[in-house]
């Protein structure tokens, strides 16, 4: 069974690398957000499998916490985009007002 866990871990790790590469390459900022999100879910899976691999499945709490936290990050990003758009409109209006 160990080798199955190990193989799954390797697959997840390689996917993590791919996500990081996407995050580094971009080209849009949304690609980077996508990469972070994907990296987050991969971390959740990685920790879940690792906790079985190391024989301490009671550490699944961590994976749970990661899943929740990752979600909040995406929301913060979404809100950031939205407020940025509105702020730019406001700036444009102010420029026009001048």
């Amino acid at each position, binding site marked *: *069974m160990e080798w*199955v*866990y190990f*193989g*799954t871990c*390797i*697959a*997840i790790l*390689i*996917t*993590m*690398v*791919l*996500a990081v*590469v*996407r995050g580094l390459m*971009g*080209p*849009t*900022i*949304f*690609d*980077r*957000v*996508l*990469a972070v*999100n*994907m990296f987050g*879910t*991969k971390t*959740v*899976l990685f920790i*879940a*499998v690792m906790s*079985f691999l190391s024989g301490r*499945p*009671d550490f*699944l*709490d961590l*994976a*749970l916490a990661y*899943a*929740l936290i*990752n*979600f909040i990050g*995406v*929301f913060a*990003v*979404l809100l950031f*985009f*939205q407020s940025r*758009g509105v702020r*730019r409109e406001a700036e*444009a209006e102010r420029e026009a007002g001048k």
Partner: protein
Amino acid sequence: MDLLLDIASAVLLLTGGLLVFVGGVGVMRMPEFFTRMHAASVTDTGGAALILAGLMLQGGLTLVPLKLAAIFLFLFLTSPTASYALANAALLSGVATACRNQTGKQLPEERQDALSASKPQTPPVAKAPAEKAAAKKAATAAAPKKPAKKAARKATRKTAKKPAKKAARKKS
């Protein structure tokens, strides 16, 4: 019985791992943001489900499968939501996409700088036979590489109106 469980969970885990990996490759190889996101979100949820199910079979009659189920539930809820939110934000910010004109909405020009790097999108290899994808890709491919974004978008719109199959055939 134990062996059966082991085999079942091994199959689930390895399939899940494969799916996750495929998703990673998709994120790397797909031509533009929305297709990349498609690859990421579908395989994310599917791969995670398989892996967690595989682990659940190994958990035995303890709190562990319950926790795994909770993780699964959360991922099942949050992952699509996050994808939706991201796609929405990207669409509103005007990330270049082949079928943009289908939204029928012209976006203000200054939003364009959401593209962090001003690199042009790399043209995809247009050889996929599927009709819709081909149309999409042909449209992107037909768009000239260098000129200003506005021109690029106009070109995109024009080519998209043309019979898509023809463009695809020409390219290939």
